[in-house]
């Protein structure tokens, strides 16, 4: 029998705020354990939540980026359970009234663009981080209370490839919007995938399994591919899929059982009494909408339609926000879009990768690169010279200074070049004879001599042209 894989994805994403969802404690990574906490994060008796408005703004940006309907009446609920990573004994979340719902996202698949529907986006607070050691469990409350959004898709994906494309698209978008730093490997973006199989043509869903905490896009694909195969074999051998929570084991590239679901846990959700419903100001929502950063899809469109870049170049640029930001900065100083794209994507990335330099430490200024490109365009330096200049600007140097110091300004004045040509021709009568006798190679030798005489500064194209004219006259 042929089966169809049904995939839905839940993503938890930590918001890029300075402080926590409901307290003024700082949100920072890699700080000493329990140093970024206050009485609220620790669930001390008598504390009350105070909503972080910046977190609401970022949640709105995520909703807008994913075409969600926005509920301007913000409400929170309590989710009750006892665990050591949950200091209050309940989590404040948005169970009944998510801030966004009924959105969608377009992803690229091998069959073209596909629309993935979003069920909801809601705000909540993160739990503390636990470390289980042989001598006992340790809890770090620095993460407790960190603002989160949970993004729940509809079961619209059909393959590991689509699942990975969805996560990648979402990750890229949220990063562009400044909503989150989306570091899956550090846990600031966490991905749970629900998978079930059904016979092709059936409209009923099969029993699903959930794979928790996938920490990279490639693992999303691998986990889905493995789990699809596992369920398929199970069904083909007459078995049944059981509802269970699994995890992806990187070493064996398989999914491993964590726990079976035995009935649903009753979290006793009820409205949070300490936060009255908050009606967001329409004009505030509009001001956020009007200040939405450009999305990767919008930039790509601009690169292709306005700058004439190829689809491949445009995609490559937007794949990394820092590269795209850099490129945008470069082309604000030069109109040589294609040339700029090449230098950014190929030459610059090669150096950064080779030297293992992070983007934030990139010594090259976009303005300098643009200047160099402009010099090439104005024939002030040759492309060969440009390579040398580029090496220097990648060390943080000003291209004008480099050209000056190395005395490599290109000679493009026809009178100057004519002088050079005349001198070389006068010194090489044999070469003129060779030329007249049809030896084309003689021209190359003469150009070489001109370049030598000019210390490489003569504009080769111009030199070639004037040389040919002069040769004909002799």
């Amino acid at each position: 029998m042929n089966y169809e894989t049904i995939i839905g994805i839940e993503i938890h994403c930590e918001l890029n705020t300075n402080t926590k969802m409901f307290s003024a404690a700082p949100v920072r990574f890699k700080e000493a354990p329990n140093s970024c906490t206050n009485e609220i994060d620790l669930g001390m008796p008598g504390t009350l939540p105070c909503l972080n408005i910046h977190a609401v703004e970022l949640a709105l940006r995520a909703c807008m980026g994913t075409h969600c309907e926005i509920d301007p009446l913000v409400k929170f609920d309590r989710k009750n359970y006892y665990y050591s990573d949950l200091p209050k004994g309940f989590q404040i979340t948005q169970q009944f009234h998510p801030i966004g719902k009924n959105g969608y996202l377009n992803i690229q698949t091998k069959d073209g663009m596909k629309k993935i529907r979003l069920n909801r986006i809601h705000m909540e607070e993160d739990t503390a981080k636990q470390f289980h050691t042989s001598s006992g469990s340790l809890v770090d409350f620095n993460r407790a209370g960190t603002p989160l959004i949970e993004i729940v898709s509809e079961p619209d994906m059909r393959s590991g490839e689509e699942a990975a494309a969805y996560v990648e698209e979402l990750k890229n978008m949220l990063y562009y919007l400044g909503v989150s730093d989306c570091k899956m490997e550090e846990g600031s973006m966490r991905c749970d995938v629900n998978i079930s199989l059904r016979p092709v043509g059936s409209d009923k869903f099969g029993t699903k399994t959930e794979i928790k905490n996938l920490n990279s896009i490639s693992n999303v694909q691998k986990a889905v591919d493995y789990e699809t195969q596992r369920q398929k074999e199970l069904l083909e051998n007459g078995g049944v899929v059981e509802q269970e929570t699994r995890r992806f084991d990187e070493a064996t590239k398989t999914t491993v059982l964590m726990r079976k679901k035995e009935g649903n846990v009753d979290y006793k959700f009820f409205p949070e009494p300490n936060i009255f419903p908050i009606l967001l100001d329409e004009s505030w929502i509009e001001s956020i909408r009007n200040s939405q950063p450009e999305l990767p899809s919008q930039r790509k469109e601009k690169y292709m339609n306005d700058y004439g870049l190829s689809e491949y170049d445009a995609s490559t640029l937007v794949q990394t926000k820092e590269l795209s930001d850099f490129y945008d900065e470069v082309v604000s100083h030069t109109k040589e879009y294609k040339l700029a794209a090449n230098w950014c994507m190929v030459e610059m990335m090669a150096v950064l990768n080779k030297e293992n330099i992070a983007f934030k430490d990139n010594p090259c200024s976009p303005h300098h690169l643009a200047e160099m490109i402009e010099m090439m365009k104005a024939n002030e330096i040759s492309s060969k010279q440009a390579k040398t200049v580029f090496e220097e600007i990648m060390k943080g140097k000003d291209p004008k200074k480099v050209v000056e110091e190395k005395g490599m300004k290109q000679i493009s004045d026809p009178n100057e070049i004519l002088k050079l040509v005349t001198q070389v021709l006068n010194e090489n009568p044999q070469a003129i004879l060779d030329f007249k006798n049809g030896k084309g190679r003689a021209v190359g030798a003469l150009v070489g001599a001109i370049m030598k005489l000019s210390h490489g500064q003569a504009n080769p194209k111009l030199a070639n042209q004037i040389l040919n004219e002069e040769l004909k006259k002799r």
Partner: protein
Amino acid sequence: MRLSDFSKDIEKNVDLSVSKLNDAQKKLNAIVTMIEPDEQIKEVKEKDPALPLYGIPVAIKDNITTKNIRTTASSRILDNYVPVYDATVIKKLKEAGAVMVAKTSMDELGMGGTNLNAYTGKVNNPYDVKRISGGSSGGSAALVAQGVVPVALGTDTGDSIRKPAAYCGVVGFKPTYGRISRYGVIPYASSLDHVGYFTTNIVDAARMLSILAGRDDHDMTSSYEPVDDYEKKLNSDIKGKKIAVLENVMSSIQDERIIQNFNELVEKLEKRGAIVERIQLDDALLQTLLPVYLIIANAEACANHSNLDGVRFGMREEGKDLEEIMINSRTKGFSSAVRKRFVLGSYSLFVENQDKLFRKAQKVRRVIVNEFKKVLDEYDCVMASAASTIAPHPEESVGEKMSDTYLVAENFMVLGNMSGYPSLTLPSGFVEGCPIGINVTAKAFDEQTLLNICKAVEEETGLENVTVEVQR
């Protein structure tokens, strides 16, 4: 004791209170923790003597968080809990120059109306130690009635300030929900909890409101409504004021002496030019007050107190794993009365019960409040006797009889918590040597009218600044 009786001599003021504390404690058992005042005295001396509470000794209910001072909420599970922060009201008291001398006993976590359910035991009524103080803010009420402190903070979720105020013969005031910050107050039920206080007279009650009220960014439910100078604007001219007597309450009271006391007061108010009318709410609605209250309060409470698990603070009972530590700590840390309320609360939140219990209770609350609001749209205040009896003996107060007297007369003050409207109890007389009181409730944020009417009542009863020491 009036605030105005105190001089600017801090040591003398505090010594006077402290010297009474030990005897009062022997008599009343009202104190959980005595506070060493020396450090505070030093701090206050640096401050401006013009401060409204400069050098005034105060007592604090033990569910209000005090930095570096043990705060137990009269629960075993918090017996060793020393907070790292001050509640907003504590900050405000300190800023006003007050000196805290005691943390007072209460029904465990605010759950109860008798103060019999405190980890430190029963609080005795200052007028008859065999009788109860009422609760849950019993310790605070008793200390003010005894004349140990002029002011004590309390909290009120059902009637936890206004009932003990009636039994102890003092002024007990719970302003509008959101008027005083709840930040740092160990909750019972967040949507019903109010911070308030006890004084011996209405002038002091007015002054305290200006000190404690105001928006607090730490409490999102606190109000931006501006704070007035209530003391300065106090005006006992109530000519033309419309007063509704809640007849459902008065008709279910059995004790003729209490009814007579109330009726005499009404006559006096009428003589002052007030328009008093007897109104009747739907009895069926009033009979739902207690069950609706218990469902909402305990549902919120069981979540609110999930943080008390013995893991991060408080009394820990060991166990073989985390779950066992939590179960053991909570089993041993709470009294059976509290655990009973948690079970009730949890039950009403279960997914299969929530619609017919918790959600329904919230809807009925809305209906009740709408009816109550209609009354206050027409009248300046609603008035009734604050209790159907004088303070009972412990054995008389335990049974929760489902009689009209119990359901209506003993629980109607929860209207003030469900609606959030400002509500005040003040003494109206004595029966068998024990105080009785009346309760007045006004419109939201109309504390000034409430205080004005109560000032007129106080002038009529003459029961201003009554303590056990200064009886009339």
